[in-house]
């Protein structure tokens, strides 16, 4: 169109200013921002403005160019739930085309991975899915060269969405309910005053506001920085091309006639739309960008997130696609009509960034979300803003989870680049990152390295998983240590873990627990804060240690942790490293506004060494004059003792089921603590033991629950078998719901099961790793009355029992000791039996060892 001198650059609500004040400002009008705004309106929040720098309906972010297809099956439960909710919303709006999708295998290893996908589909309730022979793939996708493939994993429910249309519909509906929309409105600043968000400054004026949601995709880090916060993602390039018109597609009746093909082993996908075939890739070299490298709308040749295509990176993918689909891709008359380096958002751990930012109250992140999660993530954020909890427990996506070292550009780039080529990878549940390791080192690190520790990463810490120097224990324990024949289960595992476990049960073990997150709640109101967040009574004598759940408002699990009362006005909270920063955020949100209680993060000030086993007292008493007898230092107590020249905070609790202590010293004294314990322990046969014992074998024999495995917001305390004692009189978060749960018949009960027969049809003993579906003995899925499937929440060896232990929530009719069920693993079913249906441990059910 001819440029006209008098023309205006404005489109939607042109020329007008923005409202001077709003409850919420949502920045970014892609699928995520529109979804957040829509769901806020649905929850009664209509005092909302949605801004975008770009024009509508396509402001120029990745919603406008993304490939828009959805495969629901994922090994991650949280991702699956976000995806299923998003699909439901797309379908409700009529913008979902169910094309079906086939993941194809070129290798036997991939076919085995598909049996795992079958299992995950069953665990998360996605049906139907099936494994296909190459001929069956060919019937569905006749232009594929079936000679190249071993088979396929078919999800008939996969499909393609129109995310721009969905976003527009959401915006228009919300606008009818009162949402204000301002396109072509650039954010110039986000002001923080008095420690929280106060104002958004835009090219059309300032908006005073209490909440700001950043839903700006790859630009999000730039916006967060305006408020002094971080959204730890990196923009990355995903290449795709469109070729057409293909003669075979000329007579296609609908827009999409063929299932989407994911060529898993080459990290590529191909999908027909209209007369074209789209080819996309995650196989090229990882190309990470800075948010500042994304051009402005005016400068961009296409849109800002459709960067110039770099052909050389895509050449190998063209060869692969041509080989797989020669009829279409090899056709000389079919042209490459569109080719881009699309920009998408990638995080250091592959999960989205949802929730209130760690740094600035009132500043929310709705970032690192792809089309398949958009509407579900929008709903989740809106619920978190309004109700402080969400229907989908998105704790793995909580933006607050990231530690400072995980927010650095170097770390994000390293991990995002490493993860990029694993997008379609066969990723072992225990698989470790290779890049940017060695960032957080315990004071024990050099000693551990000398002992040939095999380090796994936990919250950025290097933590021994087992010690190769303990190999002689294998000889000592001989047959009692089961070997694993299948490569998959022996990957990221060693029989040494089980041997370390047995040595701990026989003698003693020292375990590095420095990855714990440690917070001190102090001040006159410290008790009120601790009491308000903790389910159990924490108004206890000084020197008591309380193990307690933290509940969500609906009475689900927010966390389980221990609290030591160190003084009247001083509570020390110790929680697992994985979600330590999320827990800190939760605690901070419950502080009184008058400053009468404060939280100090002591994580990097203290190191922790666990000392457990029947000889633990002998070892400790040889180093101290303090009374560490059972009478003098009972279970669930903590106190300062002198160990050699060190002042040690000793806490007599155990997550492994043996007598012993967690020993805390200032981090610079950790090496000395290690040395004196090792030296004093030597005559008693102490061994260093890794997290394989602490997190799996020791824990599972005692049926101790773990947050993120057994404990999630979707399950309550009664279901988890943790409703011991009476409900405390004081108010606490989730109390009302918890009281109600105690009066209800639980929908499921957490049970421990053991595997009756490990032998596969090939005659090999197989060991489940967690996540597998529990089936009835007839092979049907087990579903509770709330529609939740039973699946293995944790799995691992119980070396003292000589059994493989599985934890799972079962509906009451199956949660019966002795009940026989089965578990689906790698395409076969194995018989399992219920051992306990409450918190009674399968090892030492009387807890005699812990209390000895």
């Amino acid at each position, binding site marked *: 169109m001819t440029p006209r001198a008098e023309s205006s650059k404005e489109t939607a609500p*042109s020329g007008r200013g923005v409202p001077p004040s709003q409850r919420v400002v949502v920045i970014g009008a892609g699928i995520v921002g529109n979804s957040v705004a829509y769901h806020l309106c649905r929850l009664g929040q209509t005092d909302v403005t949605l801004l975008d720098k770009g024009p509508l309906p396509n402001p120029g972010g990745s919603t406008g160019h993304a490939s828009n297809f959805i495969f629901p099956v994922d090994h991650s439960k949280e991702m699956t739930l976000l995806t299923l909710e998003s699909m439901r919303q797309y379908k409700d709006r009529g913008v979902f085309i169910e094309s079906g999708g086939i993941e194809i295998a070129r290798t036997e290893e991939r076919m085995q991975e598909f049996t795992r996908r079958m299992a995950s589909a069953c665990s998360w309730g996605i049906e139907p899915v099936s494994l296909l022979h190459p001929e069956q793939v060919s019937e569905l996708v006749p232009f594929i060269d079936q000679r190249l493939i071993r088979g396929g994993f078919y999800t008939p429910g996969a499909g393609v969405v129109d995310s721009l249309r969905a976003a527009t519909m959401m915006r228009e509906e919300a606008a009818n309910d009162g949402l204000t929309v301002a396109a072509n409105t650039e954010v110039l600043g986000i002001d923080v005053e008095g420690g929280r968000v106060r104002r958004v400054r835009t090219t059309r004026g300032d908006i005073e506001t209490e909440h700001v949601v950043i839903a700006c995709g790859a630009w999000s880090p730039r916006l967060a920085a305006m408020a002094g916060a971080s959204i730890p993602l990196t923009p990355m390039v995903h290449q795709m091309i469109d070729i057409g018109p293909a003669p075979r597609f000329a007579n296609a009746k609908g827009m999409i006639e063929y299932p989407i093909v994911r060529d898993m082993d080459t990290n590529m996908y191909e999908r027909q739309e209209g007369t074209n075939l789209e080819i996309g890739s995650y196989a090229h070299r990882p190309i990470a960008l800075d948010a500042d490298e994304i*051009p402005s709308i005016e400068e961009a040749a296409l849109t800002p997130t459709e960067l*110039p295509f770099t052909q050389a990176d895509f050449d190998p993918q063209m060869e692969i696609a*041509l080989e797989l689909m020669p009829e279409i891709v090899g056709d000389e008359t*079919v042209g*490459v009509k569109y080719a881009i380096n699309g920009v998408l958002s990638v995080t250091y751990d592959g999960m989205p960034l949802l929730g209130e930012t760690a740094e600035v109250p009132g500043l929310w992140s709705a970032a690192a979300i792809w089309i398949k999660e958009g509407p579900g993530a929008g709903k989740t954020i809106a619920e978190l803003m309004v109700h402080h909890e969400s229907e989908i427990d998105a704790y793995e996506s909580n933006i607050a989870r990231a530690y400072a070292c995980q927010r650095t550009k170097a770390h994000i780039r390293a991990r995002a680049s490493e993860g990029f080529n694993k997008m379609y990878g066969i990723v072992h549940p225990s698989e470790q990152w290779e890049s940017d390791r060695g960032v957080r080192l315990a004071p024990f690190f050099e000693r551990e390295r000398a002992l040939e520790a095999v380090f796994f990463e936990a919250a950025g810490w290097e933590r021994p998983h087992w010690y190769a120097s303990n190999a002689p224990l294998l000889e000592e324990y001989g047959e009692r240590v089961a070997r694993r024949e299948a490569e998959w289960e022996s990957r990221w595992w060693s029989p040494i873990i089980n041997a370390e476990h047995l040595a701990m049960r026989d003698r003693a073990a020292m375990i590095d627990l420095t990855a714990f997150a440690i917070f001190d709640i102090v001040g006159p109101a410290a008790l009120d804060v601790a009491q308000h967040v903790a389910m159990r009574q924490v108004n206890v004598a000084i020197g008591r240690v309380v193990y307690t759940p933290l509940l969500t408002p609906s009475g689900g699990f927010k966390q389980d942790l221990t609290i030591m009362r160190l003084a009247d006005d001083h509570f020390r909270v110790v929680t697992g490293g994985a979600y330590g920063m999320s827990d800190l955020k939760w605690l901070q949100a419950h502080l009184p506004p008058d400053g009468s209680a404060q939280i100090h993060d002591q994580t990097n000030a203290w190191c922790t060494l666990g000392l457990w086993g029947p000889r633990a007292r002998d070892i400790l008493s040889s180093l101290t004059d303090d009374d560490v007898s059972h009478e003098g230092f009972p279970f669930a107590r903590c106190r300062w003792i002198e160990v050699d020249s060190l002042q040690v905070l000793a806490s007599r609790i155990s997550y492994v089921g043996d007598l012993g202590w967690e020993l805390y010293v200032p981090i610079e004294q950790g090496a000395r603590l290690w040395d004196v314990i090792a030296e004093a322990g030597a005559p008693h046969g102490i061994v260093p033991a890794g997290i394989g014992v602490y997190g799996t074998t020791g824990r599972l024999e005692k049926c101790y629950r773990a947050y993120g495995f057994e404990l999630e917001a979707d399950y309550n305390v009664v279901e988890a078998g943790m409703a011991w004692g009476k409900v405390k009189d004081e108010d606490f978060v989730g109390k009302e719901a918890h009281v109600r749960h105690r009066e209800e018949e639980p929908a499921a009960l957490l049970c421990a099961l053991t595997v009756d027969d490990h032998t596969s049809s090939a005659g090999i003993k197989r060991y489940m790793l967690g996540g597998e579906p529990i089936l009835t003995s007839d092979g049907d899925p087990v579903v509770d009355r709330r529609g939740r499937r039973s699946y293995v929440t944790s799995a691992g060896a119980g070396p003292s029992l000589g059994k493989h232990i599985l934890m799972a929530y079962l509906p009451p009719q199956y949660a019966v000791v002795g009940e026989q069920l089965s578990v689906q693993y790698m395409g076969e079913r194995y018989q399992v039996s219920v051992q306990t249906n409450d918190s009674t441990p399968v090892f030492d059910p009387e807890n005699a060892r812990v209390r000895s």
Partner: protein
Amino acid sequence: MNILVCVKRVPLTGGKIVLTDDARAISTRHLGFTISPHEECGAEEAVRLVEQHGGSSTVLTVGPPEAEEQLRDVMAIGVDRAVHLVTDDEEWDPQATAAAIVDAIREVPEPYDLFLFGNESADAGNYQVPIRVAHALGLPCVTGVKGIAVSDGQLRCEQEVEGGRDIYELSMPAVITVKEGLNLPRYPSVPGRLRAKRKPVEDSTPPRRQPRLEMVRLHLPAGSGKQVEVLGHGPEAAPAVVGILRELGLV
């Protein structure tokens, strides 16, 4: 017949052009690269003529090492081989560019019958190189061509002029500069792309002649960039749309 098509690597710009700090070039920080639409038609024409009459086609560029990307793009639609006269990153003036091309052409053992250029480059727009090449080689030259036909070794070229067409008939070898609209260039196929990767590129580094034209700085005229006018909303916009269509002579 043997055809040489000459192209130039230029930035693929968006609505707003940003200059480098010294204002002597376009900032290409966010940009991809391409050749001009005229040159795309020249390449397409070369491929079609060879398809019809046999022979072979060659693409030539004077440009930095990265310009190989444009040579591969042109070969992807069917041009057989490439000649790359590799320069440093400095922009060469038309005289130096033409001299380098002439030297390269003189070295070719099998002479070209037809030289196709874009009417002007997409960035500098000096309109000089093809004419300088024709002059140096003593060849006839027709510019601004929108139709080419070959029969019995004779070329027939059509040039659009005010109110009609000029038609030139000339013998080969000849230099022709073409304009967008000459043909509808094809999209490269995937096999074409992959073949282009393996086609030969003959590299050489020509000596740079002392530039006699110096570009001092670029200036962005005010009011450039895409502009959008909202004609109205809903049915009320219809009369304004009709008005525009009338203005364009479409109704």
